[in-house]
């Protein structure tokens, strides 16, 4: 068990490697109730959201979601989140547990027009059902008649003891769903999904596997790989920044970076065989000179070698570049790799 974002959460149930494998080959169930839920509503929602977030909410139809970023005035990342358009003028935002308060304070300070912002984090519990068998597992639970959402989509189900929101999203690099229900129903659905998932080899999964899975999939973790010191362009998230939608917080800095290029980039690193696993804050060297430090790192259970992320000078950010990671005073070879380091077979 460990403290995470103010929650006391399991690192593992049976073992990180076993849980990781279950998600890559079958299905895993995560408790993601720590994550925050904000609801934005009102006639000016769309316009206002486009001013405070980097992606373009106008691209969303009802029941669709997108990954987006909340920036400070210098273009640094306050939080990364998924925003769903439930219906016109009603948006559901899923934010990081450790950032709920900061996000809400920031957004409140930016409120303008006819917009209401509500923090519903205490009302919602969240479960993530992730893995190649996630779809079959949910079909077994809900029946074949239910049309499950497409990638990044959101389905609202009004059922007894509901409502339930089911999103086709995740943080593992596999197909999967994030399931939001009233907090009092969390234990019920957790048990129910585990029970029905048995036939598909379901495993309850903790924070440990959540971290190795997302790292392999190249997803940054806010607070580690994302921070107010780095912009989304430096983090390799430019496809989630839309410059053709008008003004948004941080835009001037990002625009300048787009013109002149970024000085540092978040890269993936794959360690040579038989080296110790990298961890956050290990120094990275190139040609005997310090060039950065790792922001995340672990053994990759799928690749069998260590993987990490680090901000490196742009000149060293091309895949194939050889660098060294210093671990307990010794340097070990690593190669800059394209993110994600793991991609599922289609």
């Amino acid at each position, binding site marked *: 068990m460990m403290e995470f974002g103010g929650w006391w959460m399991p*690192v*593992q149930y049976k*073992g*990180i*490697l076993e849980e990781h494998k279950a998600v890559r080959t079958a299905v895993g169930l995560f408790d993601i109730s720590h994550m925050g839920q904000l609801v934005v509503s009102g006639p000016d929602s769309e316009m206002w959201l486009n001013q405070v977030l980097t992606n373009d909410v106008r691209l969303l139809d009802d029941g669709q979601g997108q990954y987006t970023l909340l920036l400070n005035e210098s273009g640094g990342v306050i939080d990364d989140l998924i925003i769903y358009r439930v219906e016109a003028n009603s948006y559901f935002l899923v934010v990081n547990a450790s950032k709920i308060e900061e996000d809400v304070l920031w957004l409140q300070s930016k409120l303008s027009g006819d917009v209401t912002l509500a923090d519903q984090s205490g009302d919602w519990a969240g479960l993530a059902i992730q893995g190649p068998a996630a779809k079959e597992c949910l079909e077994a639970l809900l029946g074949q008649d239910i049309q499950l959402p497409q990638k990044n989509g959101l389905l609202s189900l009004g059922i007894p003891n509901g409502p339930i929101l089911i999103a086709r999203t995740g943080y593992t690099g596999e197909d999967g769903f994030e399931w939001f229900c009233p907090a009092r129903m969390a234990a019920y659905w957790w048990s129910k999904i585990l029970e029905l998932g048995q036939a598909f080899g379901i495993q309850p999964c903790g924070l*440990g596997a959540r*971290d*190795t899975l997302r790292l392999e999939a190249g997803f940054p973790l806010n607070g580690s790989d994302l921070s107010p010191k780095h912009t989304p362009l430096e983090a390799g998230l430019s496809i989630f920044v839309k410059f053709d939608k008008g003004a948004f917080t941080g835009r001037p800095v990002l625009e300048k970076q787009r013109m002149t290029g970024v000085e540092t980039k978040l890269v993936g690193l794959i360690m040579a065989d*038989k080296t*110790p*696993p990298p*961890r956050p804050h290990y120094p990275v060297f190139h040609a005997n000179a310090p060039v950065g430090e790792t922001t995340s790192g*672990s*053994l990759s*259970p799928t690749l069998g070698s260590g993987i990490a992320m680090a901000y490196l000078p742009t000149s060293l950010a091309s895949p194939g570049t050889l660098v060294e990671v210093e671990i*307990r005073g010794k340097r070990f070879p690593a190669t800059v790799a394209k993110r994600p380091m793991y991609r599922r077979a289609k």
Partner: protein
Amino acid sequence: MKVPTNLLYATSHEWLRNDAGHATVGITDHAQHELTDVVYVELPSIGATIEAGQQICVVESVKAASDIYSPASGTVTEVNDALSQDPALLNTDPYDKGWIFKLRLATDADLSSLKSPEQYTEQLHSL
């Protein structure tokens, strides 16, 4: 958790088996369980001299690196190379195939400060 009766234990969850001044050292079943899946062992160097309670090597699980402390003073005479190939031996067989290193004891005096199986079991129960 298994606590074999023929071993001595350090508060920091290492075990020691003394064989006429030549000791074998490893980590306990409780320690391997807490560490979770071990994926890397940085073995000590043969010939290194070490004081009781000093950090001597590092065991890495998927989630973290953990220091291992020598339960006694002495000189390292042998290390378990099998752990380089199969670090998971620490999880599957912590008291036998998962031994970490052997130590020529500098003095028997250190052993009296280690815990008996009963005392170590008590420590585990008080956690």
